[in-house]
């Protein structure tokens, strides 16, 4: 589909065009207004008629933005939803070092030399350089989240070591935006997973565990994924329920919106019935 463009730019005034094309669907409005001054007047009126609905829509969107911003800020929030995990071992590196290209593998050995002894690995360090610690014994600390997938003589668990897991607790009770969830897959053989409490989900922080095990860059049992095969597990902080404070202004706003919707529905039905008559 193509639409040819022209206007006064083509040197043809609107009025002249009206004279040619009044047979179209707006002929009723254009009829009798072939003079340039009349056309200009109508044009201004048309613009005014169109301007208000457009401004109304823009205003509605602005009000929505303001309303949702106010409701977001009005939500009650605690400084943290759980206590931070105490006595965490230091990470192996202060900042993850990224290994990006084959020819930079030499740098992996350089990084190994500056690793902090007895430090813990983090998911960020492992993702930034999976080859750095592949096949080595590691210590990893994090919160068990999601599900404990028990099967084949053990259990797969997702263990997160982000700020929600180790510092402020799950988002909801506190509303501190701390970024993505992040963690590693851990395989717990039978004997290690039986004592785990409910894993972390909405309204709950799962067990925070310290794991000692072997880091595999491509674990054949997980179809080639990065895993930690645990040998020892210690629960540093047990699973706890985390209550999210009720956002009363939000509930009131939702009820008001529901009432508005109901009234709008009734109004629409009334108008439709009147039209039918």
């Amino acid at each position, binding site marked *: 589909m193509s639409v040819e463009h022209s206007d006064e730019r083509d040197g043809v005034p609107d009025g002249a065009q009206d004279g040619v094309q009044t047979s179209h669907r707006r002929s009723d409005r254009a009829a009798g207004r072939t003079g340039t001054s009349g056309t200009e007047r*109508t044009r201004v009126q048309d613009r005014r*008629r169109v301007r208000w609905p457009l401004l109304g829509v823009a205003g509605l969107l602005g009000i929505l933005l303001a309303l949702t911003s106010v409701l977001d800020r009005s939500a009650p929030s605690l400084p943290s939803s759980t206590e931070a995990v105490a006595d965490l071992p230091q990470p192996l590196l202060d900042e993850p070092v990224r290994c990006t290209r084959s020819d930079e593998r030499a740098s992996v050995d350089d990084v190994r030399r500056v690793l902090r002894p007895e430090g813990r690995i983090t998911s960020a360090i492992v993702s930034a350089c999976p080859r750095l610690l592949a096949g080595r014994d590691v210590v990893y600390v994090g919160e068990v989240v999601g599900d404990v997938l028990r099967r084949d003589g053990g259990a797969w668990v997702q263990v997160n070591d982000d700020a929600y897991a180790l510092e402020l607790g799950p988002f909801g009770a506190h509303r501190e935006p701390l970024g993505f969830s992040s963690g590693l897959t851990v395989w717990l053989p039978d004997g290690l997973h039986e004592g785990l409490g409910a894993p972390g989900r909405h309204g709950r922080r799962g067990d925070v565990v310290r794991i000692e095990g072997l880091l595999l860059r491509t674990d054949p049992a997980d179809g080639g994924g*990065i895993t930690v095969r645990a040998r020892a597990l210690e629960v540093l902080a047990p699973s706890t329920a985390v209550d999210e404070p009720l956002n009363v202004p939000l509930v009131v706003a939702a009820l008001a919106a529901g009432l508005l919707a109901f009234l709008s529905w009734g109004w629409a039905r009334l108008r439709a019935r009147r039209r039918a008559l």
Partner: protein
Amino acid sequence: MSSVLRPDVDDLRIIGFYLGKVLGGLGVVMLAPVPVALALGEWNAAAALGLGAGISLSVRWLADAHLETRRTLSWAHGMVIVALAWIVGSAFAAIPMHVSGRFTSALGAYFEATSALTTTGMSVIHDLDHLETSMGLYRHLLQLAGGLGIIIVILALFSAGGSRVGTLYVSEARDERILPNVLRTSRFIARVTAAFLVASLVALVPALLNAGFAPLRALEHAVALFASSFSTGGFSLMQASMAYYHSAWVELFVMLLMFAGMLSFALHHALWSRDLREFVDHLETRTLALTGTGLLVLLSLGLVREGTYGDLAALVRKGLFTLLSAVSSTGHQVNSGETYLTDWGVLAPAAIVGAMAIGGMASSTAGGVKALRVALAFKGVVHDIRRFLLPESAVVVTSYHVGRRRILRPETARAATTVLLLFVLSFLLGTMTALITSDVDLTEALFEGVSIGANIGISIGVVEPAMSPTLQAVYIVQMILGRLEFVAVLVLFGYLLSFRRGSRVLGRVSR
């Protein structure tokens, strides 16, 4: 001499009327998870979803009451409504997200809603792993609605039918009617979707139970996996995406769903009618088979050269899944995004970028340039070369099979090439903006730019909650352009421009 029509109040009325219906549909999508939220005691989530639903449904019924019109939709109206459905619809869909506080800003919530509705699947949500069940369900339903097309959903639910709604259907980048009647087409799409939902639950629930999930969690994850895979959206309930399941069976069923989502609904109809011949002869099937095989070879070579996986089974499992996830535009990941950069070398990510750019089939839920356009542009080039090589008197005819044998017309090849070029421009826009606004290298910027612009959702790590608002805004534009394949959005811009510069009389429109 002709001119662009300056829209008047009647035009706004008809646009507002249909846009109201779309927002009402979104309101129903927001309302659906509320019972789940109430049952689980997720009061804030229930209030957030209720607020969004209440506002959206109010707009829908107020539009019904005051804007109802019997005027016929024009092509321009259809295009504008569809473009606004995504732009304004995303704003309304973002209401529950914004008030949940899980996004850095209102722009972040809008990014998430756009990503869901355009089935891109990129996310900027904080702490996904502790998200309310009802909010997780909402994100997935939004993707399903977006994947099947808001318009189709609305048509199936509300429309009285008739020829005027066909305008909306075609505007939504679905230019291939499967059945003569648009309403019957949308019902067919709904039937196919329902069939796949049932099949998914039958296959995935036992697979998830076998993987160690509790029954209710298995059901929750099966529904989510269906919604995000068949819609080729790619959201997940857990940040680890597909790597969370540790199950080859789950991955296999999800691959089948992604493949089904990648197929055009016309081919679904052919398969439904047991017309295997059509499936084999279809230009897009052949194109995807050819490009897919080539890219799989490249990807495998890259992974072998880099020594990423020690054994063949792991290489095939990770490589094939990621390739299918890319080409189907789903965006499920089986490993952390950063490892594409740090553990996959150069060649394998390049193959993924190629797969993302090509995308799935036209008239499917998939994104990307689309196999049909790639094939037509390629055939157009070959056609021109043959014309130059053969004697001037020779008549060069190039044909292709899409539903039936067709002659390749110059305007068809040109249209395909134009959209292909627009996609490339969109990829470049995202890439350049990322390079300017973020501390990333070219590989990362290009990977993410293509993934966003083609509505894929595989992330290498550029998209994150703390990314710059400028980059977020550009990515939003890319997602909408990619989903609507440019035309509807460009018509909307032309329409907005015509408020100031258009003529009061009807322009001559040629097709």
